[in-house]
C-alpha cells in the first residue's frame, strides 16, 4: 500500500526527481573531474533540463503526490516547461560569458539546475510546506549565483542585497503561512479552501494572506516589493540576470496563481484588492521609472516589474480567461525576455561587456540583424500588433474587462502607452542615431537563442498562436 503510493508519487514528481538525482550526479562529475569539467557539466545540465521537459511532455503525469504536497496538473506542466526552457536558455547563454569573465566553474550550471528544481517544486506546491521549501531552494541557489563573480564588487553587492531582502521576505511569508495555519488549521491549499468555504473568514487570516502575498510579490518583484530588482539585475552577471528575469518569475507567478486560485478562491474579494493594487503600482512604476534609465539591464528590470503588473491583471480577473491570460503572458514574456537578453549578452567590445543603452546607437548600421531582432523584441514588449506581445496584453486586458475591472484595463493600456516611449527610444537609437563602436561578433549560442526567440515573437507566433493559446487554456482549466 505504502509502496504503491510511493511509486505513483515518484512518477508524478518525475521531473523533480530527475533534476534532484541529476544535480547530485553532476556535482560528483564536477568534483571528481576538477576544474576542467565546467564545459561538460554545462552541456550535461542543459541535457538534464531537456530530459525533464521531455518527461513532462510525453509522460505528463497528473495527480497528487506525497499526500497533497506535490500537485501535478496541466497548469503545472505548462508552467514547468516554461521554467525549464528559461533555465536551459540561461545556461546556454552563460557558456561563453562565464568563460570570458572567468567564473566558468562547474558549480555554476549545477546551481542553476538546483534553483530550477526549487522552481518546479514551487509550481507544483500543494501545501504551505512545499511552497516554502521550493521557494527557499530556488532562492538560495540564486543568492549564490548573483554573487558568483567574486571579483566584481557589484556582483557581490547584488548577491548580498538580494539575500538580505530575500530573507526579510521569507520571514514575512513564513509569518503569513503560520497565521493562515493558525486560523484555518490546514496547510494543504485545497483543505484551506474547504475550511474557508465552510467557515467565516477572520481578520487574522486576512493578515496572514497579505503577509504571504507580500512574500510572493517579492519574488515576482511587484511594487512595493520590487526594490531589489534594479540593483540585482544590474549587479549580477548578465546570464544570471537573464535567468532571474525569466524562470524564477514564471515559477513565482505560477505559485501565486495556484495559491490564490486553489487555496483562497472563497475569499477572492479580499485578495483581489491586493492584487489589483500591486498590479496597478507595478504597471505604473515600471512604465515611469524605466524612462529615466541609462543602463539596459536596469531598464529591463523596470520593464519586468511592469510586465509582472500586466500579468497580474489577469490574476486580478480571477476567472478562467484571466488565468489563461497569465499563462499565455508568461510564455510570451519568457520568449521576448530571452531574446532581449541574448542581445544584451552580445553587447561586447574589446574592452569587455557594454551595458549602456547608448552603446546600442546606430546598431542598424553595424549589425542590422541584431538591430532588427531587438526592434522586434522591444516592440513586442511594448505590445504592438502583430507581434506576440500584443496578444499577451490583449488577453489579460480582455479578461479584466470580462470580470468588470474596466478601470484596471484602462490603466493597463495607459501604462503601456507610457511604456512604449522607452522601448521606442531604444528603437530610435538603433535606427536613427550616429553609430557607436561596433560590437564583437556574437557567439553561436547567443545567435541561436536570439533567432529562435526572435522568430517566435514574429512571425512564428502568428502561426502557432492558436495551439499555444489552447495549451494555456487547458492549463487554466486545472482550477475550474
Amino acid at each position, binding site marked *: 500500500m505504502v509502496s504503491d503510493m510511493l511509486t505513483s508519487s515518484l512518477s508524478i514528481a518525475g521531473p523533480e526527481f530527475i533534476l534532484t538525482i541529476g544535480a547530485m550526479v553532476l556535482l560528483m562529475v564536477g568534483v571528481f573531474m576538477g576544474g576542467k569539467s565546467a564545459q561538460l557539466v554545462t552541456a550535461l545540465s542543459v541535457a538534464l533540463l531537456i530530459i525533464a521537459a521531455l518527461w513532462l511532455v510525453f509522460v505528463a503525469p497528473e495527480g497528487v503526490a506525497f499526500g497533497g504536497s506535490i500537485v501535478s496538473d496541466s497548469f503545472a506542466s505548462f508552467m514547468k516547461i516554461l521554467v525549464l526552457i528559461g533555465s536551459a536558455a540561461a545556461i546556454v547563454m552563460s557558456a561563453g560569458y562565464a568563460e570570458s569573465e572567468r567564473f566558468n566553474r562547474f558549480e555554476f550550471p549545477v546551481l542553476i539546475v538546483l534553483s530550477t528544481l526549487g522552481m518546479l517544486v514551487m509550481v507544483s506546491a500543494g501545501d504551505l510546506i512545499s511552497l516554502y521549501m521550493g521557494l527557499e531552494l530556488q532562492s538560495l541557489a540564486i543568492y549564490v549565483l548573483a554573487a558568483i563573480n567574486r571579483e566584481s564588487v557589484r556582483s557581490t553587492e547584488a548577491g548580498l542585497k538580494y539575500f538580505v531582502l530575500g530573507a526579510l521576505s521569507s520571514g514575512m511569508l513564513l509569518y503569513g503561512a503560520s497565521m493562515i495555519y493558525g486560523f484555518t488549521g490546514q496547510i494543504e491549499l485545497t483543505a484551506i479552501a474547504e475550511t474557508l468555504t465552510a467557515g467565516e473568514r477572520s481578520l487574522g487570516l486576512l493578515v496572514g494572506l497579505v503577509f504571504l502575498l507580500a512574500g510572493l510579490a517579492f519574488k515576482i518583484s511587484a511594487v512595493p516589493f520590487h526594490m531589489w530588482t*534594479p540593483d540585482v539585475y544590474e549587479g549580477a552577471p548578465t546570464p544570471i540576470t537573464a535567468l532571474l528575469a525569466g524562470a524564477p518569475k514564471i515559477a513565482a507567478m505560477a505559485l501565486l496563481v495556484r495559491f490564490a486560485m486553489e487555496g483562497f478562491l472563497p475569499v477572492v474579494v479580499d485578495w483581489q484588492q491586493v492584487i489589483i493594487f500591486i498590479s496597478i503600482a507595478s504597471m505604473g512604476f515600471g512604465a515611469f521609472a524605466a524612462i*529615466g534609465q541609462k543602463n539596459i539591464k536596469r531598464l529591463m528590470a523596470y520593464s519586468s516589474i511592469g510586465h509582472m503588473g500586466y500579468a497580474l491583471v489577469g490574476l486580478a480577473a480571477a476567472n478562467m480567461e484571466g488565468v489563461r491570460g497569465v499563462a499565455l503572458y508568461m510564455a510570451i514574456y519568457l520568449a521576448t525576455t530571452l531574446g532581449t537578453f541574448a542581445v544584451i549578452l552580445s553587447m561586447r567590445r574589446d574592452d569587455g561587456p557594454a551595458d549602456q543603452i547608448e552603446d546600442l546607437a546606430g546598431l542598424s548600421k553595424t549589425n542590422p540583424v541584431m538591430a532588427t531582432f531587438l526592434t522586434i523584441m522591444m516592440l513586442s514588449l511594448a505590445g504592438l500588433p502583430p507581434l506576440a506581445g500584443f496578444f499577451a496584453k490583449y488577453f489579460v486586458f480582455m479578461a479584466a474587462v470580462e470580470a468588470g475591472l474596466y478601470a484596471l484595463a484602462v490603466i493597463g493600456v495607459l501604462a503601456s502607452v507610457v511604456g512604449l516611449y522607452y522601448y521606442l527610444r531604444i528603437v530610435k537609437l538603433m535606427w536613427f542615431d550616429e553609430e557607436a563602436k561596433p560590437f564583437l561578433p556574437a557567439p553561436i549560442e547567443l545567435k541561436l537563442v536570439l533567432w529562435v526567440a526572435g522568430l517566435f515573437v514574429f512571425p512564428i507566433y502568428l502561426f502557432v498562436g492558436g495551439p499555444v493559446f489552447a495549451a494555456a487554456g487547458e492549463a487554466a482549466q486545472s482550477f475550474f
Partner: protein
Amino acid sequence: MYQIIVLLPLAGFLIAGLAGNTIGAKASEYITSSFLVVAAILSWIGFLTFDADEPMAPITMLQWMQSGGLDVAWALKIDRLTLVMLVVVNTVSALVHIYSIGYMHHDPHRPRFFAYLSLFTFAMLMLVTADNLVQMFFGWEGVGLASYLLIGFWYKKPSANAAAMKAFIVNRVGDFGFILGIFGVFAIFQSVNLDTIFAGAADVASRMGEAGGEGAEAAAEGAANMGDVVLNFAGYSLTMGGAITCVCLLLLLGAMGKSAQLGLHTWLPDAMEGPTPVSALIHAATMVTAGVFMLARMSPIFELSHTALTVVTFVGASTAIFAATVGLVQNDIKRVIAYSTCSQLGYMFVALGVGAYSVAIFHLFTHAFFKALLFLGAGSVIHAVSDEQDMRRMGGLRKHIPVTYWTMIIGTLALTGFPFTAGYFSKDAVIEAAYVGHNAFALYGWGLTVIAALLTSFYSWRLIFLTFHGKPRASADVMHHVHESPSVMIVPLFFLAAGAILAGLLFEHEFVGDAYEHFWGASLFTSAENHVLHDLHEVAFGVAIIPTVMMAVGFALAYYFYIANPAMPKQLSQTHRGLYKFFLNKWYFDELYDFLFVRSSKWIGRTLWKTGDGRIIDGLGPDGVSARVIDVTNRVVKLQTGYLYHYAFAMLIGVAALVTWMMIGGIS
C-alpha cells in the same frame, strides 16, 4: 472615339508627369501637344457629325460607387452642349500646348508644366462630359486643383503662391455651395444622374402646370402634393418650389466661384501670376466658363425657378459693369484682359438669367477664341519686352512685332463687337436677350450690359493704344531686344484669329438662329413660356444697333484719350480722384474681404493655434503629459537610493499599508 478624347489628356498627363524627367522636356512637350491635337481634331469631327435628333446613350466607362439609392458611374454624356465644350476645350488647349512650347522655352520645369496642362484638360473634359453631378464635381475640383498648381507654377515667387492659395480658397466657398446644391438635388430627386434629375424636373414642371398657377412658386403652393416638405435647409422647411429655388441658388453660388462672378471674383485677377498660356487656357477660355456651362446644363431645373434666374441676371449684370469699370484703369496688360474676362462672364450670366441659354453658350464659344487670342497675344508681347507686364512701360511696339499687333487687333475687334466678327453676333445677342427678357432684373441687365459694351470698347482700345502706339516707354535696352515671337507661338494665334473672325458668322444660325432646335436637341431646356430666343430676333433696329454704337463711341473715346490727347487721362484721374482710386483699387473688394474675412479668420486661426492648440491641447496634452511623465520619472528614480534599509523600509511600509487596508476592508 469619345473615350479617346477624354483619355488622351490623361495619358499625356501620366506620361509627362511620371516619366517627364526621364524622357526629357522635348518629348514631354511633343507627346502632350500631339495628344491634344488629336483630341481636338476628334472633337471637331464629333461636333460636326453629331445629329441632335438621334440622342446618344451615355457611354459608361466605369462603375464608380453604389450605396443605397446612390448610383454613380463614370459615364460620358454626349450631346450638343458637351460637344460644344469639347470643341472649345480641346481646341484652345491644343493651341495653348503648342504655344507653350515656345513661351516656356527657357523654363527648366517644362515636363511638369505640360503635365499640369494635360491634367487640367482631362479634368475639364471630365467636367463637361459628366453624366452625373458627382462626376461633374470631380472634374470641377480637378480643374480647381490644376488651376491651383498652374497659378503657383513658379512656386518660388511668393506672390504666385499667394495667388494660388487665394484662388483655391475663394473657390472653396463656391464649391461648398455647389456640393450643398448636389446634396439638395439628391434630396429632391433621389438621384445625381442628370437624366433622372431632368426627368424629375419635367415631372415637377408638369405638375406645376396642372396646378394652374402662373408662376412656378405660386403653383407649388397651390397643389396639394406639391405642398409637402421636400427639403430642410438652414432651419427652413421648403416645399418643392422653394426647394428648387434653394438648390438653384446653391448651384449658382458654385458657378459664381468658378466663373469669378461679383463677390467671388477676387481670385481671378490675382491668378494672372501664373504663366500667360495658363491664363489663356484656364482663366479665359475654359475653366472660368465652367460655371456658365453648369448653369446651362442644369437649365431644366433653373427653368422651374424664376427667382433663381432673376438672381442670376442680377449677378451677371453687376459683374459685367463692375469688371468693366475696374478694367478701365488697370495698368497690367494681363489684368486688363482678366477683368475683361470677368466682365464677359457677367454677360453670359445675364443671358442665362433671362433664359437664353443657347446665347450664353454661344458667347462662351466665341469668347473662348477671341479671349484666348488676346491672352496669347499679350503673352507674345510680354515675351517680346523681356517679361514686362506694365503697359506704362510699353508703347510703340507696333512696328517691332507686327504679327502680334494685327492678331491682337483682330481679338479686340471681336471682343468689342465689330460688325461680323465673332463678338458682334454673340454679344449683341446677349444684350438683345436681356432687352426682351421678362424677369425683374432683365432691364437692369440690359442697361448695364449696354454701358459695359461702351466700357469694353474703351479699355480694349486703351490696351492696344498704350501697348502698340505712341512713343516707346520701355528702356532702350529692352527695346533693343524686342523681337517677334517664334512661329510655334505665332501659328496658334492665326488659328485663334480665324476663330475670332469666323466663329460668329459660321455658327450663329445654329447656336441662336433658326436651326436652333435641330442643333441643340434636348441638351438645353426651355420651358413653354420661354420665348426669349424667338423674341430677340424681332427687336427693333434702334435697339439692335445700340451695342455697335457703343462700340464706336468707346473706340472714339479711347482714341481721343490715348492718341489725340495723351495728357487727358492724367487730368481726368486728378479731377475725379475719388472715382479713379475707387476703380483702381477694384472697388476695394480685396480690402473689404481682407478686413472681414482674411483678418478675422487669421485671428481665429492664430488664436486656435497659439492658445487652443499650443497652450491648451499641447500644454495639457502632449507637452504637458510628457513633462509630467519626466517629473514622475525623476521622482520615482530618486526612490531607488541603493540603500538596503530604504528597500526594506519600502517593503514593510507596503505590507503595513496593505494590512491596514485589509483590516478596514475586513471589518466592513
